[in-house]
C-alpha cells in the first residue's frame, strides 16, 4: 500500500444510468485526517460518488482510490478501511440498539463485541435505550445508533451521506458534534450535504458538485475569495426561530 497523505483520490470518474450521465469527469482529493464536504443539490450525483467509493457501484470510467486501494479492483481492501452511513439510517428495527452494535462488531470480527457495544452505547448517550428495540427510537436516536454502528471498529475513513437530512435541529447539532469529535480523533470524514451551513461548520475542504461535475473545490476561505468581497451592512439581529426553538428545548432538557 502506498504511503501517502491522501485518503481518497478520484480521477476522471464517470458513471451513467441508462445512458443518462450522472458523473462526468469528476476529480478531487481528500487528505488524511480531514473533513471533506461534497456539497450539491438533490440529484447532483453525490450519492453515486459515495456508492462508488464504498464499492457498492462500479464506475464506467476513471479511477477511485480509497486508502490506497482501487475501489473497482480491490474492493476488499477498501471495505476493510471504511464505513458507510447512508442517507437512511441503516439499522435493524427488530433488534435492540445493543444487538445492532454487537452484530456489526461480530461482522467486523472484533474481540469482545459486547464490551464494544456497551462502550459505544455509552459514548452515544444510548445506554438506557440500548435494551429497547430500535423501532421505538426517535429519528435522532436512530441516526446516533446508525453512526455508532459505522464507528464500530474505528475505520480510517468514514462516509456520511447526508447525515442530517430529515433530522430536527437538535438532532442535527448532535450529529455535527459527533463529526467534529471524529475529526479531532484523526478519522478522515467524507460528508455529503445539501446544506451550505453544514459544509461551512464542519468541513476543512468543500467541493461543489453540480450536474455531475465538480465546479468548485477548496477551503472555505478559498471559495469565499471567488466571490465579490463582503459589504458591510447594519441590521438588527432578531433571534431566528431556530434559536428560539433550541433555547426553549435546552431549558426543558434534563440531559
Amino acid at each position, binding site marked *: 500500500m502506498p504511503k501517502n497523505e491522501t485518503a481518497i483520490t478520484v480521477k476522471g470518474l464517470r458513471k451513467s444510468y441508462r445512458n443518462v450521465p450522472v458523473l462526468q469527469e469528476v476529480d478531487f482529493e481528500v487528505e488524511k485526517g480531514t473533513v471533506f464536504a461534497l456539497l450539491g443539490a438533490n440529484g447532483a450525483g453525490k450519492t453515486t460518488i459515495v456508492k462508488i467509493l464504498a464499492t457498492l457501484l462500479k464506475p464506467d470510467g476513471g479511477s477511485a482510490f480509497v486508502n490506497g486501494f482501487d475501489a473497482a479492483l480491490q474492493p476488499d481492501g477498501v471495505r476493510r478501511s471504511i464505513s458507510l452511513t447512508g442517507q437512511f439510517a*441503516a439499522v435493524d428495527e427488530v*433488534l435492540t440498539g445493543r444487538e445492532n452494535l454487537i452484530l456489526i462488531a461480530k461482522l467486523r470480527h472484533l474481540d469482545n463485541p459486547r464490551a464494544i457495544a456497551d462502550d459505544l452505547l455509552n459514548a452515544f448517550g444510548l445506554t438506557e435505550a440500548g435494551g429497547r428495540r430500535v423501532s421505538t427510537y426517535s429519528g435522532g436516536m436512530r441516526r446516533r445508533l446508525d453512526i455508532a454502528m459505522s464507528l464500530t471498529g474505528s475505520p480510517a475513513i468514514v462516509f456520511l451521506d447526508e447525515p442530517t437530512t430529515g433530522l430536527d435541529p437538535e438532532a442535527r447539532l448532535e450529529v455535527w458534534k459527533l463529526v467534529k469529535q471524529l475529526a479531532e480523533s484523526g478519522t*478522515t470524514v467524507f460528508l455529503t450535504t445539501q446544506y451550505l451551513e453544514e459544509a461551512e461548520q464542519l468541513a476543512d475542504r468543500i467541493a461543489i458538485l453540480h450536474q455531475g461535475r465538480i465546479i468548485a473545490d477548496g477551503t472555505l476561505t478559498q471559495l469565499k475569495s471567488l466571490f465579490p468581497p463582503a459589504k458591510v451592512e447594519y441590521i438588527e439581529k432578531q433571534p431566528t426561530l431556530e434559536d428560539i426553538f433550541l433555547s426553549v428545548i435546552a431549558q426543558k432538557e434534563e440531559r
Partner: protein
Amino acid sequence: MNIQPENAKNRPFFDVSTMLGRSMRHIFRSLDTIITVTIMPIAFMLLFVYVFGGAIRTGTDNYVNYLLPGILLIAIGTGMSYTAARLFADKQGGLFERFRSMPIAPSSLLWGHVLTSLVSNAISLIVILLAALLIGFRSPAGLLAWLAVVGILALFTLSLTWIAVIAGLSANSIDGAAAFSYPIIFLPFISSAFVPTASMPGPVRAFAENQPVTSIVETIRALLAGQPAGTEIWTALAWCLGILVVAYWLAMRVYKRQTA
C-alpha cells in the same frame, strides 16, 4: 485509525452464523410469521379432511395420510413469501448496503437468509405434523424413510428459497416480494396432492402429472406409507436439483447486476 486485518475471507461460516442468528431473532420476535405460515395449511387440512374428504375417492381409508404431503408443500410455499419479504426489507432499509460495504463475504449475506428460511420452515412443518397427528395421521415408515422425507423437503425448501431470493432482490415493493409465492402455493391444487390425477380432464391431467409437485408428493406419500418410492423419487430429486441450480444461478446474477 484502523484498517481491519485481512482475515475476513477466512471466516465465512462465522459470518453466516452471525447473520443466521440475526434473522432467527427476527422470527422469534414476530412469532406471527410461524403462525401465519402454519395456520393456512392447517385450515386447508381440516377443510379437506372434514368437509370435502368424505366425497373424495383416493383409494385409501386414511385421507389425512393421503393429504399431508401436499399440505406440507403448501406450507413451504407460504414460508417463501416471508423469506422474500425479509430480504426485501433489508435491501430497502439500507442495511443491505451497510453489509455490502463491509469486509464480509457477499454470499454470507444471502446464505444467512437462506438458512433462516430452512430453519423457520422446519419449525412450521413440525407444527403442521403435530396437528396432523392429532387428526389421525399415522405412518409405519422407518427411520430411513423419514430421513429421506426430511431430505426431500429440505431440498424442496432450498430450491424455492433461491427463487424467493430472486423475488426479494428484484421486487419494488414488499407486496411484490411476497406475491411471487402465490403460484407456488397454488401448484399443489393442480397435482395429485388432494385427489388422484386420474379424475382430471386430459390437458389438466397432463399438466398435473408432469409438474414437480406431483412427483414430490407421490414420493413423500409412498415413503410415509412405508412403501418403496420407485422411480418417482428420482423425478422428484431431479426437479428439486434442477430448480435449485437454475434459481441459484439467476439469484447470483441478479445480485451481481445490482452491484455493477
